[in-house]
C-alpha cells in the first residue's frame, strides 16, 4: 500500500530510515519546522534550519525516490523571546516562496502563554496575507485541552481563515470532537510512550469517522517510529476494515488536505 506521512521530522532521522520507508510504501513525506531539542540562540540558526528543510532534505529524500515537502514557522517552544521571533518571522516569506514549502507550520501553543499567543497571531497574519495553508501544533499532555481551545478561538475570530485549510495536529480523545465540530482537519500522532498508539488512533477512526483525519508518525529525535503509520494501517486492517477505508485514511486524506497547496504532488 502507499502511505503519505504528513508529519515527520526527517532532519532527525538516519538515511537508513529513508530506505526503510521507501521500500515499505511511504514515498511522500511532509516535515514541519519544529523545536530542535534545545532553544536556538539566534535568527541565523533558524535561517540555516529553514535552508536545511527546503534544500538539503528534499535532495536527501529524492535519492530514495521520496518526495519531501515542508512547513515553515517558528515553533511555540521558542516563542517567549519576542524580539527573536520578530526577526525570524521577517524572513519567513522568503522561504514560503520556495517550491516544496506547503504553508505555515507547525505553529501553535506549547504552555499557553501570552507570548506564545502573540507569536501565533503574527503567524496567522502572515497566513492570511499570503493565503497559506496552516499546520497547528497543539500543546502536550495536561496543556492540550486548554491550548486547543485557545487556538481554535483565535482562528475562528479571523474570518479570512477557512478552517478547511487548517489542520490541527496532535489531537486526542478529549479534543477531536471540538476540532471536527469547528470544521478543521485534525491530525493524530503515533508516538510511543507519550502520545497515541495505533489502537487508540483506530478507535478514534471508529468513533469519529474517517473524514478530515490525517494520521502521522511525527518521528523525530526522541522515541518514535518512522514506520508507525504502516503499523497503524495494519491495526485498521486486522479489525476487518476494508482496504478502501484504510487507503482513505493513510493516503487519500492527507493528499486531499495537502493538495490545497498547488505545489503538492503525491508520489
Amino acid at each position, binding site marked *: 500500500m502507499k502511505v503519505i506521512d504528513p508529519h515527520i521530522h526527517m532532519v532527525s532521522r538516519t538515511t537508513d530510515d529513508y530506505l526503510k520507508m521507501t521500500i515499505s510504501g511511504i514515498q511522500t513525506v511532509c516535515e514541519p519546522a519544529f523545536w530542535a531539542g534545545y532553544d536556538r540562540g539566534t535568527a541565523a540558526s533558524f535561517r540555516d534550519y529553514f535552508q536545511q528543510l527546503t534544500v538539503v532534505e528534499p535532495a536527501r529524500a529524492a535519492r530514495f525516490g521520496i518526495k519531501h515537502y515542508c512547513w515553515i514557522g517558528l515553533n511555540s517552544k521558542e516563542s517567549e523571546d519576542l524580539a527573536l521571533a520578530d526577526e525570524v518571522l521577517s524572513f519567513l516569506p522568503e522561504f514560503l516562496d520556495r517550491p516544496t514549502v506547503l504553508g505555515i507550520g507547525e505553529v501553535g501553543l506549547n504552555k499557553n*502563554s*501570552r*507570548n506564545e499567543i502573540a507569536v501565533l497571531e503574527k503567524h496567522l497574519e502572515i497566513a492570511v496575507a499570503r493565503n497559506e495553508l496552516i499546520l497547528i501544533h497543539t500543546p502536550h*499532555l495536561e496543556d492540550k485541552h486548554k491550548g486547543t481551545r485557545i487556538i481554535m478561538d483565535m482562528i475562528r475570530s479571523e474570518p479570512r481563515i477557512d478552517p478547511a485549510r487548517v489542520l490541527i495536529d496532535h489531537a486526542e480523545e478529549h479534543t477531536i470532537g471540538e476540532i471536527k465540530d469547528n470544521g478543521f482537519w485534525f491530525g493524530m500522532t503515533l508516538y510511543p510512550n507519550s502520545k497515541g498508539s495505533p489502537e487508540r488512533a483506530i478507535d478514534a477512526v471508529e468513533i469519529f469517522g474517517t473524514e478530515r483525519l490525517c494520521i502521522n508518525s511525527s518521528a523525530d529525535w526522541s522515541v518514535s517510529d518512522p514506520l508507525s503509520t504502516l503499523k497503524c494501517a495494519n491495526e485498521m486492517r486486522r479489525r476487518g476494515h476494508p482496504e478502501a477505508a484504510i487507503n482513505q485514511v493513510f493516503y487519500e486524506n492527507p493528499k486531499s488536505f495537502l493538495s490545497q497547496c498547488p505545489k503538492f504532488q503525491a508520489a
Partner: protein
Amino acid sequence: MSAPYSPMQAIDVLDTYFIENRSRILDIASFLDRIDRHEGVAAAKADYRYQALQTILRLLSASETGRTKAIQMALSDPSTEPLDSALGLRAYGAWDGSRP
C-alpha cells in the same frame, strides 16, 4: 471487489486484545509496587501525579463508556487564562493546580 466490512463483535475485541491489556495492567501494578518498595514513599504518594493516578484508576474501573476522554479531562488544566510566561516550564502529564 473487496469483502463488505463486518465490524468485530465485542467478544472478538476481548479475544484480540485481552492478553496485551492484561500485561499493561500488570505493568501499572508493578509500577505502584515499585514506588512502595523505595524510600520516600510517603512523599511520592503525596505528589500530585500520584494523586492523579489514583483518580484516573477510579475512572478506569467505572462502568460507563467514555473512560478515555474522562481520564484525559481529569489530567488536563481546566483553566482558561493564558500564562504570563512559559519560561522554564514544561508539561508533566497531570495538572497541578498549585503551579503557574
